[in-house]
Structure formats: structure tokens, C-alpha cells
């Protein structure tokens, strides 16, 4: 064996040895941190609370139904209590014709022909005997009397439509058509079909919105957890021992991945129970377009969601961990993580605004779907609400994966430097300098 190859094989052995030790440490750290989460009472409590809330919402219609059935025995037929609408026209025939037409249209009123004059009608409305009245001078002119004009009162608009149609039928009959022909002409149906070649934005809007919001919550929540975890170790000085016992890279990846696993378990528990409750109450929710669109999400999209969820979580958690390591007091964390939170909220805003504007393929969104800090939200939204080629998705994921690894290694370096900095909050410049040296 040549000297060079001996050196090479020795150094390879060294790397292998280092690798084995680091992987072992990583495994121990992962196990320790993960156990911390799942035995934490707050963690268990929060999970159960969410499951209970979802159970409450999902079972609400069935519970309501049980009460309704009991109630319906006590309350007799409600149709007798319909409010009264009075109509009066210039002639008796017209009054009767209008009453018939109105009665067919205003099904939530009891429509009567008034048997008094205008003053009598006003008096009846004022006394509450009738709620409103249409006083017609002719078939094309009327006055609407009502006690309190509600914001949602669209009776006049409906009346206009009914009267217009009566007028048209009359005009056509006078022109020589039979009433049947006339109404056939006026109500000629138009056949229209929608064939969607892409994606139904309306249907996808809700679950995309829910997923983006869930991503937002999860990243901020668990990212903060990682930051707090690191800062707690630092402030309790357990760090002094940890930093001499384990490699910073193993520490960082162990913590972040343990938090991720704990988070996934929590999410699976919450969403899984939601799905279970949905199926148990399928009769009540099946007709609800929003809810069933959420649970009817296509499997492919779900896989993308998972990928972007995990990668997005990683990239932010590494940054949160690095920031946590530079804080010397637990209280400092909230201000220290501000810049990261700002980037994240800005990305969230861009996505939500473009979603509600209906166009998710703007230039800004396209750019955002390749920037690793915004791509988890932006690219996922575009996949869900628009048509994106597989190459674009691949490129976005590839950039994200490389960035996650890069940010992970960088954050381990910051961690190594940061955990030994006590006292004043370090300046960003000095941290960068120290990291470059390390």
C-alpha cells in the first residue's frame, strides 16, 4: 500500500469513527428529547384539549338534533305564525292577481288582500297585525309600507321582478300569444356546463387556507419550543456539560427532529381524530361543501403538504434553535426571534393575500415559491390552487432540501459559539465573525 493510500484509509477510518459516534449521540439526544415531550403534562394536555374541541364541533349537529327532537314535540306547527303581507291594487281583479303571484313568491309571508283603504293599512302595520304592505296604483307602480325597514329587506326587489313578469305576460297576451306561450318565452331555459381543465379554486380554497394556517401555527409554535429548549439548557448551565459531551451538530439535529416527531404525533392525533369524528358524523357533515372538501383532499396533494410541512418546519426550527443559543436569558428569546418571525409573517401575508385575490400565479408568488423561507407556503398554495409543472415543484423542493441542510449545519455552528456567550446580548456581527472562525 502506498503511503498516500494509507493516509487516505486512515483518515477515512477517522471519519467513519467520528460518524458512528455522532450518529450514536444523535440517537441518544433524539430519544431523550422526544421522551421529554411526550411525558410533558402540558404537551399531553394541549393535545387532548384540541381533540376535545374538535370532537365538540364535529358532534355538535348530532347533539343539537337530539335536543331538537325533544323540542319539536312541544312546539306545534309554526306555519300559522307567518307574518302578514297586505296587497291592494286599483281594481279587485288586479288585487287578486297580484296576491296570487306574491303568495307564490313570498313563501315566508301570509299574503292577504287588504280590505280597507290606505289609512287602514297603515294602522294595521303600526299595530303589528301586518308586517308590510304593497299599495299598487297600477301594475307598474306601487308604494311599500313597512314598520321597520330591515337591512336585509329585499321584498321590493322581489316585488319588482314579479310585477315586471306580470306586465310582460300581459303585454304578450295582448299581442296575441296564449298565456302559456308567453310564460314559456319569458322563462326559456339556457343550458350551460362548466368543464374545468385545471383546478377548482373554490373547492381548494378552504383546505389550502386551513393547511397554510396550520403550517403557520405549527412552525411558530414548535420553532419557539426549540428556541426555548436550547435557551433553558443554556440558562440552567446544563450546556456547560452538554457542549463537552456531544457534538453541536448532533445536539441541533437531535433536538429539532425530536420536536418534529413530537409535533407530527400531535398533528396526527388532532387531524386523525378530526377525520374519525367526521366519518362518525358523515350524515351531518356530508352535505357541507367546506367540511367535506377538507376531508376530500386528494392524496397527492396531501403528500406534498407533508413534504413542505416537514421541510418548512426544519428550516425555521434550525434558525429558532440557533437564535435560542445566543440568548442568555429565557426572557430575551421573544425579542431575539423577532426577525425570523417577521420574515415568516411576511411570507404568510403574501400567500394569504394572493389566495384571496384569486390569482396565486403572480410574479411575487412565483419568486416566493423558490425562496426556501417562503416556498413551503407559496409553492404548496400554488400546487393546491393552480397548475404547476412537476419540474417547478421538483426545483422548489430541491432548493428547500439543500437549504435545510445548509441552515442546519450553519445553525449548529452558531449554536456552538452561541451557547458559551453569556451576559450582554451578542451583536449579530460578532456572532458571524465567531461562526466563520469556528
Amino acid at each position, binding site marked *: 500500500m502506498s503511503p498516500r493510500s494509507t493516509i487516505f484509509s486512515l483518515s477515512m477510518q*477517522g471519519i467513519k*469513527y*467520528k460518524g458512528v*459516534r455522532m450518529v*450514536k*449521540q444523535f440517537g*441518544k*439526544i433524539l430519544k*431523550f428529547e422526544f421522551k*421529554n415531550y411526550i411525558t410533558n403534562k402540558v404537551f399531553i394536555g394541549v393535545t387532548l384539549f384540541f381533540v376535545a374541541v374538535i370532537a365538540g364541533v364535529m358532534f355538535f349537529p348530532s347533539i343539537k338534533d337530539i335536543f331538537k327532537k325533544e323540542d319539536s314535540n312541544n312546539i306545534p306547527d309554526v306555519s300559522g305564525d307567518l307574518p302578514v303581507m297586505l296587497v291592494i291594487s286599483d281594481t279587485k281583479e288586479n288585487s287578486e292577481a297580484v296576491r296570487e303571484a306574491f303568495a307564490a313568491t313570498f313563501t315566508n309571508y301570509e299574503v292577504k288582500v287588504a280590505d280597507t283603504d290606505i289609512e287602514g293599512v297603515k294602522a294595521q302595520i303600526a299595530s303589528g297585525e301586518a308586517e308590510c304592505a304593497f299599495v299598487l296604483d297600477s301594475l307598474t307602480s306601487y308604494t311599500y309600507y313597512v314598520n321597520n325597514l330591515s337591512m336585509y329587506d329585499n321584498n321590493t326587489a322581489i316585488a319588482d321582478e314579479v310585477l315586471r313578469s306580470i306586465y310582460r305576460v300581459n303585454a304578450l297576451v295582448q299581442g296575441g300569444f296564449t298565456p302559456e306561450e308567453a310564460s314559456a318565452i319569458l322563462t326559456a331555459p339556457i343550458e350551460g356546463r362548466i368543464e374545468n381543465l385545471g383546478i377548482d379554486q373554490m373547492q381548494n380554497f378552504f383546505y389550502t387556507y386551513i393547511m397554510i394556517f396550520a403550517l403557520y401555527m405549527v412552525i411558530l409554535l414548535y420553532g419557539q419550543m426549540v428556541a426555548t429548549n436550547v435557551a433553558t*439548557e443554556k440558562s*440552567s*448551565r*446544563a*450546556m*456547560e*456539560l*452538554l*457542549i*463537552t*459531551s*456531544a457534538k453541536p451538530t448532533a445536539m441541533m439535529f437531535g433536538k429539532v427532529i425530536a420536536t418534529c416527531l413530537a409535533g407530527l404525533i400531535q398533528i396526527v392525533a388532532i387531524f386523525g381524530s378530526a377525520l374519525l369524528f367526521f366519518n362518525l358524523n358523515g350524515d351531518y357533515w356530508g352535505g357541507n361543501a367546506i367540511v367535506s372538501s377538507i376531508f376530500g383532499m386528494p392524496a397527492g396533494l396531501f403528500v406534498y403538504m407533508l413534504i413542505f410541512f416537514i421541510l418548512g418546519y426544519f428550516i425555521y426550527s434550525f434558525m429558532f434553535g440557533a437564535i435560542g443559543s445566543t440568548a442568555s436569558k429565557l426572557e430575551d428569546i421573544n425579542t431575539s426571534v423577532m426577525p425570523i418571525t417577521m420574515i415568516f409573517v411576511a411570507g404568510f401575508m403574501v400567500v394569504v393575500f394572493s389566495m384571496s385575490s384569486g390569482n396565486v400565479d403572480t410574479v411575487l408568488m412565483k419568486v416566493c415559491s423558490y425562496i426556501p423561507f417562503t416556498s413551503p407556503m407559496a409553492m404548496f398554495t400554488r400546487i393546491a390552487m393552480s397548475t404547476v409543472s412537476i419540474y417547478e415543484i421538483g426545483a422548489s423542493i430541491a432548493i428547500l432540501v439543500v437549504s435545510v441542510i445548509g441552515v442546519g449545519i450553519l445553525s449548529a455552528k452558531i449554536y*456552538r*459559539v452561541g451557547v*458559551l456567550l453569556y451576559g450582554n446580548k451578542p451583536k449579530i456581527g*460578532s456572532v458571524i*465573525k*465567531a461562526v466563520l472562525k*469556528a
Partner: protein
Amino acid sequence: MKLELRNIDKSFGEKKVLKNVTLSAEGGKAFGLLGRNGAGKTTTIRILMNVFPADKGEVLLDEKPINYDKVLFGYLPEERGLYPKKKIIDQLVYFAELKGMSHSKAVSAVDYWLDRLGMTEYRNKRLDTLSKGNQQKIQLITAVAHDPQIVILDEPFSGLDPVNAMLLKDVVKEIISKGKIVFFSSHQMNYIEEFCDSIAIINGGQVVLSGDLREIKRNYPRNRLVVRSLQNEKIASEYEGSVERGENGDIIIVLNTPEEKKSVMSKLTETYDIDEIKVYEPSLNDIFVEYAGDQI
């Protein structure tokens, strides 16, 4: 086994923390690293343990660059701290495992040390339910449970009552007798004097004195005589100007040269009623104050 630091330089930003630090410690002996607050002791220890690299210089074990993947360190940091809310057994086993022990070996090693330090009853308690001294004993276990070759103890005796200090002394002596390198850092000179065969005093980032403790003491200028006599006042007035007051009413006569020793001694014993007369042996405290007292 011989551990050496050679020509170590380290700066943090503009501040030079270590300047050309060289020291060596041997297996089976304890090494004392002394220095005032901020002198660079902790930085030296961190470089030794590869927490961060030195700007210049090297760490050698038996003349070869140390392989941090094979050598196990045990460390008792000056800033004590573990996980306050966790069960003691869980965290001790965790730290031993991080150092490469298997789970079952870690458990039995931790149980051995809990028993050895009389802490078995606290095995399943949370750390923050213990007194400070007992927490320190728990912390000591993290430094020794994984059977490291090099043990670094930073201020190990601070906060311990005399009984626990005795217990710790026994443990330290046992570790030394097993041929391990024990690296002490302390301000409490009496403990260093008791354990350490060799020392290094570090001041302002530089090693100002290092070597075998007995030799250092021997090489200390032997120009002082400690005199104990009932006629102390008379002697003091005769040698006025070159007399210091010692402990217990002794007087110390400072000679111009060590060679005068013999003549002064015989003159004193002839003239006065002397109970005891001997050459003054400096304490480590004196040496420390002399070398580290002036500047930082």
C-alpha cells in the same frame, strides 16, 4: 500518559485571552491550574476539551496530537447546572450514554457512583429537590461515571461541607491512584497543595510559573528564617528593618543573601533562648500572591 498543551494562543475578537500557554500533566498525578478570575483558566480548559479550537498551538497526548474521538474527558464545570426538572437517574444515564456508554453499563455505573457518594436515596427524585451540596455531588457523577482517562475538576470543593469535602477528597485520590490525569482548577490553595504534584499559575493569559510544586517551593529564595522564641521582641529590635511578623507570634527575618543563613542562625542560638528556628518554606498561597497578585 502525558497530556501537553503547547504554545496555545487564543483571542476573542480583539482581546488576546491566552498567550503562548504551555503546560503538561501526567497520569497518576494531579495537576493544578491556578489563576485569578478572568486569567484564562476556563478558556484553557475549553481548548483542552476541544469546545473551540486554539488560534495557534497544539494539544498532545503522549507526544501525538490528541484524538478527541477516542479520549474520554470527565468535566465538572465551575458553573454547575444540569436539568433541574428531570429525574436524577434519567439525566445521569443520559450524560453517560452521550459519552458512549451502553444503556445498561451507564445505569450500573451511575448506580455505583450514587451508592459511593451516599446518594442512592435520591435516585428517582427531581434534581431541584436536592440541596446545593447534594446537587454538586450529582454533578460530580457526570464527570466520573463514564470512566474517563482525563478528569477536569473546576473548583470541585466550593460549596461542600467538611464531611462531603472529605468524601470528595477520597474520590479524587482514588481516581489519581488509578493512573488517570486529574486536572484541578481552584482558588482554594490548601486543596491544591494537598493533591497536586505539579502546578501552573496563569496570569493575564500567560503561564507565569509552572512545574513540580516541591521544586517550586525549594527554588523559592531561601533567605528567610522563621524564629520562635520568648524573646521575640528583643530579636525584632536587633534586626529592625528586616523583620516581618509571621503567624502565631513568630517573626521572620529577611536576610540579604541566603548565604548569611548559617552565621545568623548560630548567632541567634548563641545569643537568645530559641525554641525553634528554620528556613521559611513558602506556602502555595504566598507563591500565588507573588506571581498572580500584581496584574490581570
